[in-house]
C-alpha cells in the first residue's frame, strides 16, 4: 500500500501532505495541467507515513484516463461518471474558438462579398440578353431547390440566433425578450431540422448525376472559374464550382444532419461525450456551409446577371448559357431546345394570359 501512495505523490513531500488537507487543492487538482509536481522533496525526512487517501480518489475520478466510473442508484446515461473531463474542452471550443472565429468568418465573408462586388461588379452577360432561352431547371427541380433553400435559411437564422444571441442580441432585446426568441428558435430549429434531411435526400437524388466531375472541370478550376481575367470559361451543365458546392452541401450537410439528430434525440443512450462531439461537428459544418452558401446566394443574385432566372422561371438566357455553361448550351442548341422569349413568357407570366383567346381566334379566322 505504501508503494501505492508513493506512486501518486512524490515521496518525502511534506508540503504535499499539507496541501492535500486543503480543500482548495482538491479544486486545483480538478483542473487539467495542474499537479503536485511543484512540491519539492525535503531531504532528511522519512517517507510520508500518512497521506489523505481522498486525494487518490479525486485524481482517479478526474477521468484523465477515462477509466473510473462508479455505480449509482440514479439511473441515466453517464450518471456514474463523477467528473466529465471533456466538458471543459467543449466549453473552451465554444467560447474561445467557435463564437469568435465563426463570427469573424461570417462577417469576413460578408465583407469580402461586398468588396468583391465593389471591385468586380456585377458579371454581365457579355453578349447582352438574347431573344432566346434554354430550359434549365424543371419545376420539380426548382421546387426542391427553394424547398431546401427556405429550410436552410430558417435553420441558419435560428441557429445563428442561438449561437450569437448572447453577445449580439441580449444587449439589444434584454434577457427576457431574447429568451422568448431563443426558445422559439430552438423549438423551430429542432422541428425543421429533420425536414432538412428530407430536402437533402431529394436534392441529392435529383442533382447527383449532373454533379459528377467531368472532363473540363479541371481546366475550369485552373482558370479560376473566370474570376481571374475577363474571359469566361466553358463548362458543363454545372461548372466545377457548382459541383464542388453540391458535394460540400451533400457531405457537410450529412454531417450537420447526423450530428443534429444526435443532439435533438437524446434517446439513443448517447452520453455527453457524443453530444459534445456532435455539437462541434454541427457547428463547424454549419458555419462552413453558411459561409459557402453566402457566396452561392451572392453569385446567384446580385453577383451575376441572368443567374437567378434559371431557378425562378426555369429558363435561362441563351447567351448567358453560352458564356457560362458552353458545353451544355451548345448541345442544347444543337438539339433545338432553344425557345423564343415570347413562348417562355406565355408559359410563365400570368399577366399575358388574357391575350391567348385573341391570339387563338385571330389565328383561326
Amino acid at each position, binding site marked *: 500500500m505504501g508503494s501505492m501512495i508513493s506512486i501518486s505523490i512524490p515521496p518525502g513531500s511534506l508540503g504535499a501532505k499539507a496541501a492535500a488537507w486543503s480543500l482548495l487543492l482538491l479544486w486545483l487538482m480538478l483542473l487539467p495541467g495542474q499537479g503536485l509536481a511543484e512540491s519539492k522533496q525535503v531531504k532528511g525526512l522519512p517517507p510520508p507515513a500518512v497521506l489523505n487517501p481522498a486525494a487518490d480518489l479525486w485524481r482517479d475520478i478526474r477521468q484523465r484516463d477515462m477509466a473510473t466510473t462508479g455505480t449509482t442508484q440514479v439511473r441515466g446515461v453517464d450518471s456514474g461518471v463523477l467528473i466529465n473531463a471533456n466538458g471543459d474542452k467543449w466549453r473552451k471550443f465554444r467560447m474561445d474558438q467557435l463564437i469568435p472565429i465563426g463570427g469573424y468568418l461570417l462577417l469576413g465573408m460578408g465583407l469580402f462579398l461586398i468588396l468583391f462586388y465593389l471591385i468586380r461588379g456585377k458579371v454581365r452577360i457579355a453578349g447582352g440578353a438574347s431573344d432566346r432561352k434554354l430550359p434549365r431547371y424543371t*419545376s420539380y427541380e*426548382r421546387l426542391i431547390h427553394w424547398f431546401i433553400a427556405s429550410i436552410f435559411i430558417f435553420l441558419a437564422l435560428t441557429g445563428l440566433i442561438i449561437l450569437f444571441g448572447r453577445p449580439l442580441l441580449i444587449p439589444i432585446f434584454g434577457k427576457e425578450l431574447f429568451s422568448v426568441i431563443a426558445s422559439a428558435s430552438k*423549438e*423551430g430549429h429542432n*422541428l425543421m431540422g429533420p*425536414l432538412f434531411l428530407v430536402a437533402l435526400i431529394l436534392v441529392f437524388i435529383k442533382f447527383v448525376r449532373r454533379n459528377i466531375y467531368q472532363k473540363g472541370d479541371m481546366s475550369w478550376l485552373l482558370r479560376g472559374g473566370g474570376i481571374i481575367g475577363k474571359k469566361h470559361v466553358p463548362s458543363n451543365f454545372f461548372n466545377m464550382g457548382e459541383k464542388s458546392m453540391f458535394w460540400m452541401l451533400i457531405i457537410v450537410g450529412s454531417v450537420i444532419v447526423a450530428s443534429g439528430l444526435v443532439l435533438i434525440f437524446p434517446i439513443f443512450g448517447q452520453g455527453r461525450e457524443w453530444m459534445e462531439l456532435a455539437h462541434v461537428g454541427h457547428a463547424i459544418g454549419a458555419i462552413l456551409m453558411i459561409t459557402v452558401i453566402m457566396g452561392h446566394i451572392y453569385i446567384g443574385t446580385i453577383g451575376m446577371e441572368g443567374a437567378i432566372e434559371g431557378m425562378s422561371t426555369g429558363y435561362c438566357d441563351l447567351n448567358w448559357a453560352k458564356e457560362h455553361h458552353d458545353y451544355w448550351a451548345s448541345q442544347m442548341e444543337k438539339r433545338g431546345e432553344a425557345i423564343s422569349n415570347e413562348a417562355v413568357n406565355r*408559359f410563365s407570366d400570368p399577366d399575358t394570359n388574357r391575350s391567348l383567346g385573341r391570339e387563338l381566334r385571330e389565328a383561326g379566322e
Partner: protein
Amino acid sequence: MIGQFIDGPLWTFSLAVFVIGVVWRIVTILMAGNRPDLSTPRGSASSGAIRTIFSRSVYERTAATRGRLLQIAGYLFHIGLFALLFFAKPHVDFYAERITGFGWATMPHWAFILSAELAFLGLLLLWIHRLLSPVTRLLSDLDDHLGSILVFLVMLTGCLALAQSFEALRLIHLLLAELLLIYFPFSKLMHTFTFVMSRGYTGATMGRKGVNA
C-alpha cells in the same frame, strides 16, 4: 393586458365568427338550390355520393409527375394538420378547457412531432409549388396566398411555442389561430367543409350514371 384580450374576448369573438360564418356559408350554398334530376337512374345517387366522398381521397395514379408530387404533399399536409389539430395534447387540453368540457385520447409526443414535421413538409412543398408552377401561378389569387400564409404562420408559431413555457409565444400562436378562424368562413379554407358537398354532388350525379367517380 393585450394577452388577456387575446385569451378572452378575441377568442370568443373569433370562435363565434367561425361557427356562424361556416354555417352561413353552407346555408347560402344550399339555398342556391339544385334542379331535380329527372333522368332514369342506372345506379344509386346516394351510394355514389358516399362513395365519392371517400374515394376522392384515394391516390389517383393516372396523374403525371406534378400530380404525384401534389398528391403526396397534399396527403402529408392534410394528415399532419388533422392529427395536429385534433390529437395533439396541448390542443385537446385547450378544447377541453374552452369548448367541449371533456378531452379525448391524444397522440404520444413523438407522433405529435412527427405529424408536425409531415404537415410542414407538405405545406412547404405545396406552397413553393404554388409560387413556382405556371399553372398555380396563373390560378392563385390573393385568397390562396393569404390562406397559405395564415396557416403557415399558425403552424410555425405553434412549433415555436412547442416548449409550452413562454406565455408570449402561446399568445402569438393563439392570436394567429384566431385571425385564421375569423378569416376562415370568407375564404378558400371553406373547402374543409364544402369538399363534402362537392364530392357528394359529383358522386351523386356519377352514381346515377353508374360510374364509379
